[in-house]
C-alpha cells in the first residue's frame, strides 16, 4: 500500500475494492443497436461494480442465441462459457459443483430457456443451485431471423403477419412453483428496477430467476408484438419499487414502515420493496402465483420481485461438499491410500 502524503493525480472513480468501472466491462457488443440485451449487460456491469465483486470470482455461462452472446459484453476478465443450445443449466451446475466459491451468472434467452432448454431449466430451478439465471426475453428467435418462441404471448404477431395462437409459458410462475428462491421480472429499459434486482441477485445464495423483457428491435418491435418497447411501456405494471442496500453500506434509507417490506439477504444486505398498489408479501408462494396469473388475465406485464426465500439450503449445501473448490483439492484428499485399496481387495477375496 502506498503511504505517501503527496496527493496523486485526480483520482479515478473506483469501487470499494479499488477497481474502475472499466474493469467490469466486456468486449464491444455485436448485437443490433438498441437491442434490449445491451441495456441488461450495462446493468450487470454496474451491479458487479457497485457491489465490488472481484471479476475473477465470476463464471459467465450461456446457451446459444442472441442473448447467449452477451456474456462476452460484460466482465471481460471473468471466465466465460458459451455452451450448447438450451443446455447451459447443466454446464453451470457442473461448474458450481467443481468450484462452489464461484459466482455463476447464466444468460439465456426465451428460446434457449422455454423451448429447447425447458427440461434443463425445470431441473435447475428445483435444485436451487446458486446461480443468477437471466432470461433476456423477447419472445422471438433473433439469430435465426424472427421465429416465435414459447414465451411469445398469445395473439402476438410477427412482422410477416403470422399470429401466435398458443399460450405463453410464464417462466416466473414456473420458477416459483419449481423451487427457485429469488424470482423476478423486469424490463430492459427500466434502469433503476433492473439494477436493484441484479444487485439483490448477486447477494442471494440460491437460484435467482430473473426474466427481463427485452424487445427485439429487429424482429419484434412493431405494432403486433406484445414485447415491443411501446407495448411494454404501456402495459408494464411494477409490483413494487425495489431498492437494494448492500450490507457494507450504512443503512440509512428513508422508508415508511407502513408501506414497505424489507428482506435481508444471505450476506446481510437488504432488499427494500416499496409497495405501490397492493399489500404484497414476496415470501408467499401462493401470492406470487396469484398476482402473476391475474396480471396475465389482464394483459399486464407485472414486474418486480415476486418471490424470495432465503432459508432453503442450496444444492451445493445439500451435497455436503467441502468448502474449498473440488477442482483444486490436492492428491492427498482425492486419492485414498494404499491401505484403503488393500482393505477393499481383501473384502473381495
Amino acid at each position: 500500500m502506498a503511504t505517501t502524503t503527496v496527493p496523486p493525480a485526480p483520482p479515478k472513480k473506483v469501487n470499494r475494492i479499488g477497481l474502475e468501472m472499466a474493469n467490469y466491462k466486456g468486449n464491444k457488443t455485436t448485437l443490433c443497436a438498441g437491442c434490449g440485451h445491451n441495456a441488461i449487460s450495462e446493468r450487470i456491469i454496474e451491479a458487479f461494480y457497485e457491489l465490488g465483486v472481484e471479476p475473477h470470482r465470476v463464471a459467465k455461462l450461456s446457451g446459444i442465441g442472441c442473448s447467449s452472446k452477451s456474456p462476452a459484453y460484460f466482465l471481460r476478465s471473468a471466465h466465460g462459457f458459451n455452451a450448447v443450445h438450451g443446455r447451459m443449466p447443466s454446464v453451470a451446475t457442473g461448474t458450481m459443483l467443481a468450484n462452489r466459491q464461484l459466482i455463476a451468472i447464466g444468460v439465456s434467452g426465451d428460446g434457449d430457456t422455454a423451448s429447447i432448454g425447458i427440461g434443463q431449466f425445470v431441473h435447475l430451478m428445483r435444485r436451487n443451485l446458486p446461480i443468477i439465471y437471466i432470461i433476456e426475453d423477447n419472445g422471438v428467435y433473433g439469430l435465426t431471423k424472427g421465429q416465435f418462441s414459447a414465451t411469445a404471448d398469445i395473439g402476438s404477431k410477427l412482422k410477416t403477419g403470422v399470429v401466435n395462437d398458443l399460450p405463453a409459458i410464464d417462466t416466473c410462475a414456473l420458477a416459483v412453483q419449481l423451487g427457485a428462491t429469488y424470482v423476478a421480472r423486469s424490463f430492459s429499459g427500466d434502469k433503476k428496477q433492473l439494477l436493484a434486482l441484479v444487485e439483490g441477485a448477486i447477494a442471494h445464495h440460491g437460484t435467482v430467476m430473473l426474466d427481463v423483457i427485452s424487445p427485439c428491435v429487429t424482429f419484434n418491435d412493431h405494432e403486433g408484438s406484445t414485447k415491443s418497447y411501446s407495448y411494454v411501456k404501456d402495459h408494464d405494471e411494477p409490483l413494487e419499487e425495489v431498492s437494494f442496500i448492500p450490507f457494507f453500506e450504512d443503512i440509512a434509507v428513508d422508508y415508511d414502515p407502513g408501506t414497505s417490506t424489507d428482506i435481508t439477504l444471505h450476506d446481510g444486505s437488504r432488499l427494500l420493496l416499496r409497495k405501490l398498489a397492493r399489500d404484497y408479501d414476496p415470501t408467499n408462494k401462493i401470492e406470487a402465483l396469484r398476482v402473476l396469473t391475474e396480471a396475465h388475465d389482464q394483459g399486464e406485464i407485472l414486474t418486480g420481485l415476486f418471490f424470495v426465500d432465503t432459508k432453503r439450503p442450496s444444492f451445493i449445501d445439500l451435497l455436503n461438499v467441502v468448502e474449498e473448490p473440488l477442482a483444486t483439492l490436492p492428491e492427498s484428499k482425492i486419492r485414498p491410500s494404499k491401505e484403503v485399496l488393500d482393505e477393499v481387495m481383501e473384502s473381495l477375496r
Partner: protein
Amino acid sequence: MATTGVEFKEKESPAKPAKVVNDLSIQVATVNGSGSQTANTVLLRAIFQMGIPVSAKNLFPSNIAGLPTWFTIRACKFGYIARRKDSEFLVAMNPETAEEDVHTLQPGAACVYDERLDLKRLRDDVIFYPVPFDQLVAPVCPDARLRKLVRNMVYDGVLARLLGIEMEEIHKALQKQFRKKAKAAELNWTAARVGYEFAEKNLPKQDRHVLERMDKTRGKILIDGNSAAALGAMFGGVTVVTWYPITPSSSLCETLIEYMKRYRIDKETGKATFAIVQAEDELAAIGMVMGAGWAGARAMTSTSGPGISLMAEFVGLGYYAEIPGVIFDVQRVGPSTGLPTRTAQGDVMKNALLSQGDTKHPLLFPCSVEECFTLAVEAFNLAEDLQTPVFVMTDLDLGMNNWMSDPFPYPEKPIQRGKVLSAEDLQRLGGFERYRDVDGDGVGYRTLPGTPHPAAGYFTRGSGHNVKAIYSERPEDYVNNMDRLARKFETARARVPGPVIQEAPNADFGILAYGTSHWAIVESVDQLKQDHDLTASYCRVRAFPFSEQVKDFIRRHRRVYVVEQNRDAQLCGLLRLELEAESIKKLRSVLHYCGLPLDARSVTDAIVAYEREK
C-alpha cells in the same frame, strides 16, 4: 499351419467313461425375480474358494420378474474363462424354457430338474437327476413367501453332492453373501443341506464330471467390471460424478457412491471431497461433466449406447472447446433400445467419431476387471493431459458379470492435472493464449475459473475461435485450430496405452481383438494350435488412436483376423481409415453379434473356415 490336410481326430474313449476333473460348464435356467442370483453366486464363490478357475455369465431379461434367466458357470482347470457354447450340466428350474433347454444339451450331458417338469421323457441320451424342490423346501421354510427365494439354494446342495463341491465352501460363501443377515444365511444353509442330503440318498452319480480342489485362485479376488471401474474412478481422483440410470451401466455409479461415502469423506470436516448427481437425463449428465471439467474438476459420467447418442453434441463441444471429461460406456446391444441386457461392442465407430464436423476421441478398451481399474485411473490423467473427452469402452459382459482377478495394483503415477496455469504462472508470464500450441504437441495451456489474476479469464465456446479464444470466422483461424487438434490426436496416439502383443514365432497369421473378446481369443489361439496346427500371433488393442505397434503388427503378418462383437466390423473400419492399402488387404473380420459373450469355438471355426478357403 496345417499342411497335411488331414484333420486331427480325438480317439474314442474306452467303454467305461473316465471321470472328467475340473472342466465343465453348468447352466442354471430360472425365472428372473426368483432369487436365483444368490444361489448362483454362492455356487460360483464355492468353486472359486476351492481354488478352481471359474467364470460366470448371467443372461438375464430386461424385466423385473417372471421372464427366463440363464446363469452359466464355467470351471476350468486350464484357466479358460470365456463363455462356452454348450454345457455339461443343466439345472432346469424354469417350466417355460425347460424343454427347449434340455434339447440344447449335448449327448451325455446331465440335467438336474424340478421333478414336476417330468423332463426325463424328452431324451434318453441325457442323464436326468429329478429333485422334488417344493417337497424339500416346505419343511425348511415355513414362510410361504420366502419359499420361492430359498428354493434355489436346494440345487446348490444337490450340485455340491453330485459334483463334489465342498459343503464347507458353500457355507463360507453363504456367510459372505449374507454378511450381517445371520438369519437369512442360516435359512439358506439349511436349504442347501437338504438338497445335499436328498442327493446323497436318492441320486446315484451317473455322469463323469467332478470338481476337485486345486490351488489356482489363491490370492485372487472376485469382482464385476462396473465395481472395478468405480474403484478406478475413486483412486483416479474423480471429484464430480453425474449420471443417469441405464442398464448396464447403472451399477457403476451406484457402487461408486457406496465406495465414495466410505472412503472419500474428509476426516477433518466430515464433508465430501466429491459431488455425485443423478441428472435428469444424459444430456444434462454430460453437460455437467463439461462444466465441471472446464472448472477444473476430475469429472465423469457412465452410460450405455442410447445415452451416448444423446451426449453427441456435448462431446463435440468438449473436443472443439477442449474440455477434459471421462465417459464410461458399458456397451449393450443396439440399435435403439435393442437388447438392453445383452452384450456387444457396438459403439466403437460411433464413439470414435462422435458429434458433427471433424471430431475424433480417444477410446480405451479394458479387457478385464483389472484393466477396468487401471484404465479408469489412466483415463482421468489422459483427459486432463489432452484436455478432451476420453471414453472407457467396457461392455455388459465385463461390467455386470463377476470375474476372478489378481488384486488391483495401487496407482504408481501421481495424479497428473495437465497444463493448468496458476495465478503465479500468469504473473511470471504476463498472460497466456488459450489455444496456442506452445509446446508443439497440440495441447494448449488453460486456466481455471476463479484463478485470482486479471489475465486468467478467457471465453470458452463451441463456435469458431482463434488462438486467443476470441470468436473468429476467419478461414485461417479455423484451419489453424483444426490442424492443431489433429496434432493433438497424434500426441494422444503416443500417449494412450499400447497394445499387448503375444508374438508366435513363424505365425501363420495374426489375430487382432479388443475388450472382452480377449478371453475367447486366448482359448482360440490354443484350439487353433492343438486342433488345427495353426499358429497365431495375437495383438490386443487397448486404445484408439491406434499405436504404431498395432500397425506394425498388421504389416508383419500375412493375414490378420480382426475379431469384434458387432455386425459392421467397426474397429476394422477405423483401422482401414489409418492403414495403407497393402495392410488393408490383409484384414479379415470375424464378427459375433448375437448378444451373448464371445466363445472361443466360434472364433476358431471362423478362422479355420477362412484358412481353408485360401
